[in-house]
C-alpha cells in the first residue's frame, strides 16, 4: 500500500489549481498537484477571448471600476450569485491580472491615438489616450457596460496557463501528471485527501493531506456536443458527491454559448461579436436587433442563445445534415484584424470547416459551454459539510456566476479564486482542526475499495458496455436537458438516467483487460460517475419551476424570486439510491448590495421577493447618504473585510491614482 503525506493536495492542474498551489507554497506549505494531463494541456488553455478586470485603460473602458463590474456580474447571474463572493472577486480581479503581467503574460496593450473599430456593424474611430499608452487594453464582451475584457491577441488562456505553470515550476511545486483522483478519503465529516490512480501504470496511491482542493473544471462532456475539452467530465463533482457528505450547488445552471461551429462544437470566441461580428439567418438577415434592440449580439450569453434557438424554431435556420444552424459573420472586421486578434478562429475555420472567415460566414449554433454549478463551498472555498475539502475554479460553486456567467469572468475567477482560496487554506492549515487524524486501517479501506471496483469491472461477467451507456447519457442530456426545458422532457430525462444508473452498476470491460493504461477501463469507471452527476443536473432542473438566467423553463417563463431565490444543494447520502437528496439554501435579500431587479432583456416577468422593496429602499437611502463610492460600498456590505489582508488594498487606475 502506497501512502504519500503532504500539507495540501490540489486535484487539477488548470489555472485554478495551479494558482492555489502557488499560493499555499508561498505560505510555506507543501503541496502536490494531481492532474490527468500535463498542466499546460488543461482546458484553461482553450480560453481565447479574454479575462475581465476593471482596469479602465482603454478609452471604451474609461470610468470603469469594481462597482460597475459588480453590477454587470450580478445582473448577468440573474441575481443568483452570492453577492459577497462577487464583491471579493471584482476587487481582486485587477490584482490578479497585474500579478500575471508581472509573471510574464504578454497582455495586449493600449496604443495611443486613433484606431478603427466596428461597433453595431458601423466603422467608428476610437482615440486612445496618451496617458494610457502601454497599459493593458480591453475589448468588448457580452453583458458588460464597459470594455473590460483584457486579452493577449487570440490566446488569453494559453498565455495565462503557461505563465502560471512556469511559475509553479519556478516554485518547485510537485506536479504529478496522468494521475486521476478516484475517491476522496474522509471520515467523520472531515476530508483527508484522495486515492489516486496512475493512468500509465495503474498503480493506486493514497495522498493524505490536511486540506484537499478540487479544481477539476466543468462537466460539459455530459452532453454529446460541447465546446469543452474531452476531460471536462465532472469527475471532481462525482468525487464530492460520492462522499455522501459534500454537496453540489445549482447543478442545473448550465450555460450554452451562442457560437460553436457545426457540427463539432468547437468554440469561436465571443471576441468575434465583441469586436463587431454579427449573426445572420438563412436569408442573410441580421436578426438580433429585432429581439434585443439595445444590446443586440452582445446581450448576455444565455439571452443570445435563446434568441437564436427561437429564431431557428421560426424556420429561419439554415438547414444542414447536422440540423439547423445560423451564420456568424465576421467578414466585416477585415482580414488584418482577423489574422491578428482572431487568428485562432481563423485556424479553426480553416482546419475544421475548410473556410476562410475573412470571406465566408461561419456556421454556428448554441452549444453547451460552461458549468455554473459545482461543488458547494463558502466564500473561503470550503465545503460547509465536509471540513478540509476545498474547491475553486469552474469545478466550484462558491457562487460567483449564479445562473449565467459573463464571458471573460471565468478565467478571471480561476485566478482570483486560486489566490483567495490558497490563503484561506493556509489559514486553515494553521488551526488545530487541520491535524491529520485518520488511521492507516481506514486509508487502506479506501484504497482497497477502489481496487475492488476496478477488478470487478475487469473481471466481471457479461455486464453492460460502458460506451453504450455513455452515449445514451450524452444523448438524453442533449435532447432533454438543453437550452429550453420543460417538465415532460425533464421527467423523462430523469427516469431514463435512473435506468442508466441502474445498468451502470453492472458494467464489464470487454477485451481490454489491463489494469495499467487502459482507456476502456477509464471509460467504464468514469461513466458510472458521470451518470450520477448528470442526474443532479436533470433532477435539479426538473424541480426548479421558474426561469432564471440560463435555466429557461418553457412551462415557467417567469423568474420567481418569491419561491426560488434559493440555491439548489444536492448530495448522495446512500450509494444505492437512484436520485440525489436535494435541499435548498435561501439567498438573503436583506444583505444584497444590489437588490433583485430586472436584467433589461425581453419582458419583465419577475415575481418579486417580499423583502425586495424594503431592501431596495434601504439601499437607496444608503446611496443618497454617501457620495464617495468607497464609503457607499462599505455601508452597503462588509464583504471586503473578509478578504485576506494582503488583498484588501484599493486598486490604482488612471482616474484613481495613488499618491506616490
Amino acid at each position, binding site marked *: 500500500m502506497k501512502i504519500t503525506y503532504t500539507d495540501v493536495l490540489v486535484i487539477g492542474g488548470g489555472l485554478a489549481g495551479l494558482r492555489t498551489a502557488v499560493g499555499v507554497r508561498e505560505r510555506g506549505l507543501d503541496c502536490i498537484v494531481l492532474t490527468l*494531463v*500535463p498542466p*499546460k*494541456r*488543461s*482546458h484553461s*488553455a*482553450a480560453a481565447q477571448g479574454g479575462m475581465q478586470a476593471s*482596469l479602465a485603460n482603454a478609452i471604451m473602458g474609461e470610468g470603469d471600476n469594481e462597482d460597475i463590474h459588480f453590477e454587470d456580474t450580478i445582473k448577468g447571474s440573474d441575481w443568483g450569485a452570492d453577492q459577497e463572493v462577487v464583491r471579493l472577486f471584482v476587487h481582486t480581479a*485587477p*490584482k*490578479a*491580472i*497585474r*500579478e500575471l503581467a*508581472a*509573471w510574464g503574460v*504578454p497582455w*495586449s*496593450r*493600449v496604443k495611443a491615438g486613433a484606431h478603427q473599430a466596428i461597433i453595431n456593424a458601423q466603422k467608428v474611430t476610437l482615440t486612445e489616450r496618451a496617458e494610457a499608452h*502601454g*497599459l*493593458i*487594453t480591453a475589448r468588448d464582451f457580452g453583458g458588460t457596460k464597459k470594455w473590460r475584457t483584457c486579452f*493577449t*491577441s487570440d*490566446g488569453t488562456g*494559453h498565455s495565462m496557463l*503557461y505563465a502560471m505553470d*512556469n511559475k509553479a515550476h*519556478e516554485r518547485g511545486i510537485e*506536479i504529478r*501528471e*496522468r494521475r486521476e483522483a478516484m475517491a476522496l478519503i474522509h471520515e467523520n465529516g472531515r476530508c483527508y485527501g484522495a486515492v489516486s490512480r496512475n493512468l500509465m*501504470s495503474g498503480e493506486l496511491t493514497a495522498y493524505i493531506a490536511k486540506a484537499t482542493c478540487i479544481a477539476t473544471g466543468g462537466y460539459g462532456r455530459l452532453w454529446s456536443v460541447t465546446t469543452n*475539452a*474531452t*476531460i471536462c467530465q465532472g469527475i471532481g463533482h462525482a468525487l464530492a458527491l460520492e462522499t455522501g457528505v459534500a454537496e453540489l450547488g445549482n447543478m442545473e445552471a448550465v450555460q450554452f454559448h451562442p457560437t460553436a461551429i457545426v457540427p*463539432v462544437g*468547437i*468554440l469561436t470566441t465571443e471576441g468575434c461579436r465583441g469586436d463587431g461580428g454579427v449573426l445572420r439567418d438563412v436569408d442573410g438577415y441580421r436578426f438580433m436587433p429585432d429581439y434585443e434592440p439595445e444590446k443586440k449580439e452582445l446581450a448576455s450569453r444565455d439571452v443570445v442563445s435563446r434568441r437564436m434557438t427561437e429564431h431557428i424554431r421560426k424556420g429561419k435556420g439554415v438547414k444542414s*445534415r447536422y440540423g439547423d444552424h445560423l451564420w456568424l459573420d465576421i467578414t466585416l472586421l477585415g482580414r488584418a484584424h482577423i489574422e*491578428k486578434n482572431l487568428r485562432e478562429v481563423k485556424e479553426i475555420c480553416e*482546419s*475544421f*470547416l475548410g473556410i476562410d472567415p475573412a470571406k465566408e460566414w461561419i456556421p454556428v449554433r448554441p452549444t453547451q459551454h460552461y458549468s455554473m454549478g459545482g461543488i458547494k463551498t463558502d466564500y473561503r472555498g470550503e465545503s460547509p459539510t465536509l471540513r478540509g475539502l476545498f474547491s475553486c475554479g469552474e469545478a466550484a460553486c462558491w457562487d460567483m456566476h449564479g445562473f449565467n456567467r459573463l464571458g471573460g469572468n471565468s478565467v478571471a475567477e480561476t485566478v482570483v479564486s486560486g489566490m483567495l482560496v490558497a490563503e484561506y487554506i493556509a489559514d486553515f492549515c494553521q488551526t488545530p482542526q487541520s491535524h491529520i487524524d485518520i488511521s492507516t486501517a481506514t486509508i487502506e479501506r479506501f484504497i482497497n475499495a477502489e481496487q475492488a471496483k476496478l477488478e470487478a469491472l475487469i473481471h466481471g461477467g457479461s455486464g453492460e458496455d460502458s*460506451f453504450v451507456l455513455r452515449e445514451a447519457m450524452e444523448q438524453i442530456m442533449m435532447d432533454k436537458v438543453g437550452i429550453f426545458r420543460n417538465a415532460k422532457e425533464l421527467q423523462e430525462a430523469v427516469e431514463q438516467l435512473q435506468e442508466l444508473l441502474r445498468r451502470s452498476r453492472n458494467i464489464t470491460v470487454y477485451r481490454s483487460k*489491463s489494469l*495499467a*493504461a*487502459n*482507456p*476502456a477501463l477509464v*471509460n467504464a469507471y468514469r461513466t458510472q460517475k458521470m451518470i450520477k452527476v448528470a442526474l443532479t443536473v436533470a433532477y435539479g432542473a426538473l424541480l426548479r419551476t421558474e426561469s432564471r438566467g440560463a435555466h429557461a423553463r418553457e412551462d415557467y417563463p417567469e423568474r420567481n424570486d418569491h419561491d426560488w431565490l434559493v440555491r439548489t444543494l444536492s448530495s448522495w447520502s446512500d450509494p444505492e439510491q437512484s436520485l440525489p437528496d436535494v435541499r435548498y439554501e435561501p439567498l438573503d435579500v436583506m444583505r444584497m448590495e444590489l437588490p433583485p431587479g430586472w436584467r433589461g432583456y425581453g419582458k419583465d416577468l419577475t415575481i418579486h421577493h417580499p423583502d425586495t422593496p424594503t431592501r431596495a429602499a434601504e439601499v437607496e437611502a444608503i446611496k443618497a447618504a454617501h457620495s464617495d463610492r468607497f464609503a457607499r460600498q462599505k455601508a452597503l456590505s462588509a464583504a471586503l473585510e473578509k478578504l485576506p489582508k494582503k488583498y484588501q*488594498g*484599493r*486598486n490604482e487606475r*488612471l482616474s484613481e491614482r*495613488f499618491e506616490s
Partner: protein
Amino acid sequence: MSEGRTLHVHILRFDPHLKDDKPRIETFELREAPGMTLYIALNDIRKYLDNSLKFDFVCRAGICGSCAMLINGRPGLACRTLTSKLDAHISLAPLPVFELIGDLSVHTGNWMRGMSERLETWIHTQKAPDIDRMEERMEPELAEAIYELDRCIECGCCIAGCGTIQMRESFVGAVGLNKIARYRLDPRDERSDAQLYQLIGDEDGVFGCMSLLGCADVCPKELPLQSQIAYLRRKMVQIGK
C-alpha cells in the same frame, strides 16, 4: 468525392505494460464521414473496433498540443487533420524520442517539464510586483512580438522532426531554443545574454542545431523557428567570443 470511402488506418501498436507484447502494425477499416478528423476516426476505432487503443486528445481543436503523432511519417496534430486530405491508407505511429505510454500515447509532459526546468523558462526578476498599483507599461508591438513566440503549444512535433536530437538526446530542441528567444525578448526577464549563454551556449543548445529546419516545417503553430534560431545563434556566438 471523399465521402463514403473506406479508410484503412495502419497503427503502430505496442503496450510496454503488457508482458510479451511486441510492436506491430494493426490495420483498422472504417467508413469515412464528412468532416471526419483523425480525432473522430480514432475514437470510432476505439468505440467500435478495439477499446484498448491508446491515444491522447484533450481540446480536439488544435490548441492544447496533446495529440501530436506521426501521420504518414510526418509529425502533426491528429485532431486538426481532416481524413479527406489524406489517402485512404493512413499510417499512424507515436512520436519518437518521447517515452512511450502505449500505442499512440507518449509522455511529452515530462520531457517538456525537464526542458523547462533546465532552461528555467520563467521570468527571472528581483522585483516583487505591487499588484495594487498600475501595471508596468509595455509597447504594444513588443507585447505582440512576445506573444508570437509564446504561442508554442509544446506538442513535440519539432522534436520528432529534428535530426540533432536523434544523435544527442540532451539537445533542447527548437521548442527549447524558441523559449529562450521568447524570454530574451521580454524586458521583464532580467537575465543577461551571458546568463542565457550558460544555458544554451553549447552543443545541447544553439550550437547543436544543424539548421536543417525539420522543425520549422512541422510546427503546427508556424512559429518563426528558423529566424529565431539563427538570430539566437548569432547573439550567442558574439557572447562566446
